[in-house]
């Protein structure tokens, strides 16, 4: 076997294209996530902008070959800014019939379809529910089909390494990656280095995967069929700096670590595992040397209570969860409101109601976050817009919580949690400041004495001599902090708690327009993970001359102080959300503008196209 050149040998044949969307799909055991990650690194090193999204099966480990065991990974990379992992793939790699079955309908008409014909045997076809072999029955004629026996090719490539057949088969993904690298003209070195590091302890695996990668690449080089199928996506005009790929959950966790460092305070996370939030717990539990303590509590109630306890004792108390867990935490969050302690609650939303679609995304916990507590229990609610934004919003949540002595709910979702994008690594010294003020002076102290500006009560932590005091969930006297059932006092306290949270509006940025003009026919108002899709759709529509702008709220309670005024500058307001219309309710009730809802509840993000269509329909109506 001849070793292929490590750089594309015939660069002249590459067609330059501005962007591409590629999806890898295969059985859970086929290593699609690794393939996707390596392909992503290559795109990043080629300075493309990019976004990725993995699609894990709901089952832990479904039987091989089943449709519900299919694992996918999509990447969108471009020479321009990229805002979403892409609507529909230009290229689909399907490692078995089940992967083809579940993914084909997304592939663009005429798109390149690479299948591992070696997996299209009778058993697999049956498991995928095919009655005839699609590779042979003409059903794929709308696509540019490349049917290759990747299994056999891989076995051939690694036959000298002495691996068992089963282990040899595991190298298929690297063979495929090699082929894809050839198509997009990517160098092999970084992946070869990665293989070396990853499998260093088992040289035969290093050898085999290396051989497979190179063989796939060589296949592209030599197989006739590829002569007209190479593409180049030139570098994007990215700001210089150090970048890494980051998903939302990692960004959230790192944001919390950063907040703890900035504030110079230890942080305690109380959490109970739940999809898709568990990774925040997993990630944070690595950082004990950063002064981060993670408590895997017995349930969500204990988790939030532990976080509140930690805040009470002067640490940064945080709890992370998803929908059903949020429901369980509401009583305790109400207590944090009543005793006015800082608390960060991170809700990584997933499909519901109830257990719902645990591995899918949704934005339907918004009203629960804003209103889901007994009585008047206002909290601050913020939402992250992109995976990387989770980092900054986590810091912001901590900043507001400690400054205003209030619970802050940070909303992200399954799509942000697992979706990834290149992220410019910030310099710690450029991060926002968080100043903590602990009360130490016993003179004139009472626990509900308020700061005149923020209306926050003092953070007076156990261990401070002379400040011994009692707090609790019963109503407190405004002037002494003691228990009080007095009627007017209760109203005064309810109002001051509300005013305190409302006052945060003075401390957050004004609402800006992301894309488009400051006034006009239509404003598309989004929040959370729909950011990328809305932005791209609005850009495209504007490119076609439509009068549409995009604004994206990161602060939901309170809203930015200029939001009402901004909304009224537009004839119409459209609010796309991954729910049946929740932000739109808040907007309508707060500003009495006839905002219209564009709901989607399919466990999936918006496609850019869906939004474009909606905008067009609306502007034409």
């Amino acid at each position, binding site marked *: 076997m001849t070793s292929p050149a490590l750089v594309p040998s015939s660069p002249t044949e590459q067609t330059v294209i501005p962007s591409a969307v590629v999806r890898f799909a295969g059985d859970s055991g086929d290593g699609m996530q690794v393939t996707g990650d390596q392909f992503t690194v290559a795109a990043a090193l080629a300075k493309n902008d990019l976004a990725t999204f993995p699609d894990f099966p709901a089952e832990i480990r479904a039987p091989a070959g089943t449709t519900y065991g299919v694992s996918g990974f999509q990447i969108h990379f471009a020479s321009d800014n990229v805002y979403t992992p892409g609507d529909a793939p230009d290229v689909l790699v399907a490692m078995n019939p089940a992967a083809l079955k579940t993914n084909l309908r997304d592939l663009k008409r005429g798109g390149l379809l690479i299948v591992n014909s070696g997996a299209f045997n009778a058993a697999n076809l049956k498991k995928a529910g095919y009655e005839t072999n699609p590779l042979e029955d003409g059903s794929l004629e709308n696509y540019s089909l490349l049917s290759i026996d990747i299994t056999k090719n891989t076995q051939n490539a690694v036959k000298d390494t002495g691996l068992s057949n089963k282990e040899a088969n595991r190298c298929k993904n690297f063979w495929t990656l090699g082929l894809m690298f050839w198509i997009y003209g990517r160098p092999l070195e970084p992946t070869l280095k990665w293989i070396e590091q990853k499998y260093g302890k088992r040289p035969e695996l290093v050898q085999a995967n290396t051989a497979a990668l190179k063989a796939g690449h060589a296949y592209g080089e030599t197989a006739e069929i590829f002569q007209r199928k190479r593409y180049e996506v030139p570098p994007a005009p990215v700001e210089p700096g150090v970048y890494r790929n980051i998903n939302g959950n990692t960004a959230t966790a790192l944001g919390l670590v950063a907040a703890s460092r900035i504030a110079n305070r*230890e942080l305690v996370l109380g959490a109970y595992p739940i999809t898709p939030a568990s990774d925040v717990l997993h990630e944070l539990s690595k950082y*004990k*040397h*950063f002064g981060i303590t993670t408590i895997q509590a017995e349930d969500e109630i204990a988790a939030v209570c532990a976080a509140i306890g930690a805040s009470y*004792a002067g640490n940064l108390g945080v709890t992370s969860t998803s929908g059903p867990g949020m429901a369980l935490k509401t009583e305790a969050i109400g207590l944090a409101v009543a005793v006015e302690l800082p608390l960060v609650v991170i809700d990584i939303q997933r499909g519901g109601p109830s257990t719902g679609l645990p591995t899918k995304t949704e934005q339907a916990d918004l009203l629960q976050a804003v209103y889901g507590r007994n009585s008047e229990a206002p909290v601050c609610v913020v939402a992250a817009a992109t995976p990387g934004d989770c980092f900054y919003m986590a810091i912001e949540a901590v900043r507001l919580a400690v400054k205003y002595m209030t619970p802050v709910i940070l909303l992200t979702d399954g799509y942000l949690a697992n979706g990834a994008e290149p992220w410019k690594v910030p310099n710690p010294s450029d991060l926002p400041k968080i100043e903590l003020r602990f009360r130490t002076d016993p003179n004139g102290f009472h626990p509900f004495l308020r700061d005149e500006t923020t209306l926050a009560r003092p953070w007076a932590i156990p261990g401070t001599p002379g400040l*011994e005091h009692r707090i609790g969930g019963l109503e407190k006297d405004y002037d002494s902090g003691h228990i009080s059932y007095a009627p007017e006092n209760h109203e005064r306290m309810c109002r001051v708690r509300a005013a305190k949270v409302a006052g945060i509006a003075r401390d957050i940025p004004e609402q800006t327009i992301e894309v488009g003009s400051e006034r006009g026919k239509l404003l598309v108002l989004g929040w959370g993970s729909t950011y990328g899709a809305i932005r791209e759709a609005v850009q495209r529509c504007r490119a076609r001359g439509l009068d549409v702008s995009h604004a994206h709220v990161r602060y939901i309670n309170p809203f930015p102080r200029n939001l009402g005024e901004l909304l009224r500058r537009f004839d119409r307001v459209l609010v796309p959300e991954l729910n049946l219309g929740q932000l739109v309710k808040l907007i309508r009730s707060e500003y009495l503008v006839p905002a219209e809802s564009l709901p989607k509840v399919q466990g999936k993000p918006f496609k850019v196209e869906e939004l474009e269509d909606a905008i067009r329909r609306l502007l034409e109506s």
Partner: protein
Amino acid sequence: MSNLIEPAKLTKKDFETDQDVRWCPGCGDYSILANVQRVMPELGIPRERIVWVSGIGCSSRFPYYMNTYGFHTIHGRAPAFAMGIKVANPELSVWIATGDGDGLSIGGNQLMHCLRRNLDVKILLFNNRIYGLTKGQYSPTSELGKVTKSTPFGSADQPIDPASFALGANATFVARSIDTEAAHLSDVLRRAARHSGAAFTEIYQNCNVFNDGAFDSFRERDVKAERQLRVEHGKPLVFGAQRDKGLRLDPKTLTLEVVRVGEGGVPESEVLVHDETNQTLAYMLARMPYPEYPVALGVLYAVERPTYDGVLRTQKAEALARSGAPDLARLLRGNAAWEI
């Protein structure tokens, strides 16, 4: 705040607050409060390092009356708050006041996990076998068939014994006392305070409004010697005004029997000796059916095991030693960054 001088020795008064105590006149909670306020100064812990945490219930009003830090939280979850507090600041001495409803009904899960984790907190469970604050419904410790407002035909569920629950949940310290037995209660509290780990103390407490006299049959002066078994580590399990009764093990049936000791009975050497490190013995003592057997009071069980907060502290120190001072810039960069 570092120019603190050695604090003056504290007295009971130092632990009293200026709040009106709002329990019903005659409630057993008063004597527990007085007892705790008496014992606290002996512990030599400055007031600012003591935190009382509670849930909801008459008993859970306790923190308001202790001039320390105090947190009256929500129903049943005090152990979870305590976990956050203790983990955040291990220097604090954390005490939980709870009731049979707060701790064993709604809060059973938090209590169980606190005990098995062996979080270093002291838990006082005021067992009045009733819900006081909500005006008299039966609780998980009320006897079967209990007639209350919510069970006019009698309750249908078997009660749970707090001490046996705690043992089953792997507690490292389990004790029992009575509101009115001042000296005994003080002893038990001192032991609990000294225990490193979750110290669970059940205190029989009379609710004179909704369950008056619940414990009279073994609490009243004239019967108590015959009905209470005061256990002490290393001492024989004897009781009775004449100390003429004892507990013997029947090794065949693996059960305890009450025997007459001394004259006309068995020699004291046949009587079991209390070993507070023996879980089985503690379990048997906790579960002795009353009134066939006396009520066991005192430290039923006490062993040392690593505490949850202690292990976490060690892990943190080790991690720091291993990884060196935290470097945020490096962390944010991760290990797959690229430069453009």
